């Protein structure tokens, strides 16, 4: 266990994590590109036309992965925020704030593609369906997290304050989701299943590959962003000075 502990603390220090992240970014970028190409090929050329929804169903190859990523990123963000609060590690707070913009972007994309999917399928750009509504609320939660972080000038206060907010948010997400679902069934407005019919294996594969592609994309972008955050937070340390003179 001793080895594991040493590694843990070693990589939780910004000074060691910064170059490590720099080395990892190209691999994740390459993975993201390859998986995107494969996923798009599967989605457009291998997966057959849906007998009910025609070609319009192909939107789910980005809609569903974007929606999954938006939720996954929020959970990961809250986990990092929690680690930052409990262990007081600077790196985890920086990771949490680096994740937020990408998570908000995927939430927005899930809403956008959901609207474009809903118009031909349901006949309306927006339906107060439980999933779409929860996704909208998730976007509000991301915006709240980022605004709180941006409003506090002192990083020593901004990190724990936004971290606490992320944790409160992640506790509330299931409650909000369940209540929106209940509200939706009571008002019996839009009880539409997005894919009630059994899905073909190729469709599912394409969706999963696209999810992994977005996941790798997220890792690559977030690592780049966390490198920015690390540089700004540690700008007066010696290792940053060494790093800068190396790169210039």
């Amino acid at each position: 266990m001793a080895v594991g502990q040493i590694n843990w603390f070693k990589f939780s220090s910004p000074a060691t994590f910064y170059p490590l992240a720099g080395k990892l970014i190209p691999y994740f970028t390459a993975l993201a590109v390859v998986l995107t190409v494969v996923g798009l090929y599967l989605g457009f050329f291998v997966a057959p036309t849906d007998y009910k929804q025609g070609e319009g169903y192909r939107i789910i190859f980005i809609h569903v992965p974007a929606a999954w990523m938006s939720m996954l990123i929020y959970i990961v963000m809250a986990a990092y925020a929690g680690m930052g609060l409990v262990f007081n590690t600077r790196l985890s707070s920086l990771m949490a704030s680096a994740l937020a913009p990408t998570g908000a972007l995927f939430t927005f994309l899930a809403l956008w593609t959901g609207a474009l999917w809903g118009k031909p399928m349901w006949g309306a750009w927006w339906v107060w369906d439980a999933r779409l509504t929860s996704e909208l609320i998730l976007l509000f939660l991301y915006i709240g997290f980022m605004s709180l972080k941006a409003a506090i000038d002192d990083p020593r206060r901004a990190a724990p304050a936004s971290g606490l907010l992320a944790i409160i948010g992640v506790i509330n997400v299931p409650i909000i989701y369940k209540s929106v679902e209940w509200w939706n069934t009571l008002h019996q407005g839009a009880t539409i299943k997005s894919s009630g019919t059994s899905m073909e294996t190729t469709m599912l594969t394409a969706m999963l590959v696209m999810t992994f592609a977005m996941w790798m994309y997220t890792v690559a972008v977030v690592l780049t962003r966390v490198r920015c955050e690390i540089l700004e937070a540690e700008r007066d340390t010696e290792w940053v000075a060494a790093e800068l003179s190396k790169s210039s």
Partner: protein
Amino acid sequence: MNWGSAGEFFAMGGYAFYVWGSFGVTALFLLVEVIMVVHRKRTIVQRLGRRMRMQAEVKQ
């Protein structure tokens, strides 16, 4: 293979606007995010480098 020709592919069985609207905007936004992050990284490195040189001059 689903498509007889390139035209058929781009028509998406009449759903061209919705399908390409989704994929296009997603591609655009992800691209913009990448550009913004890379640009941010570059400006930070430049700014901190300048700051470092200035502090070195002040010390001398």
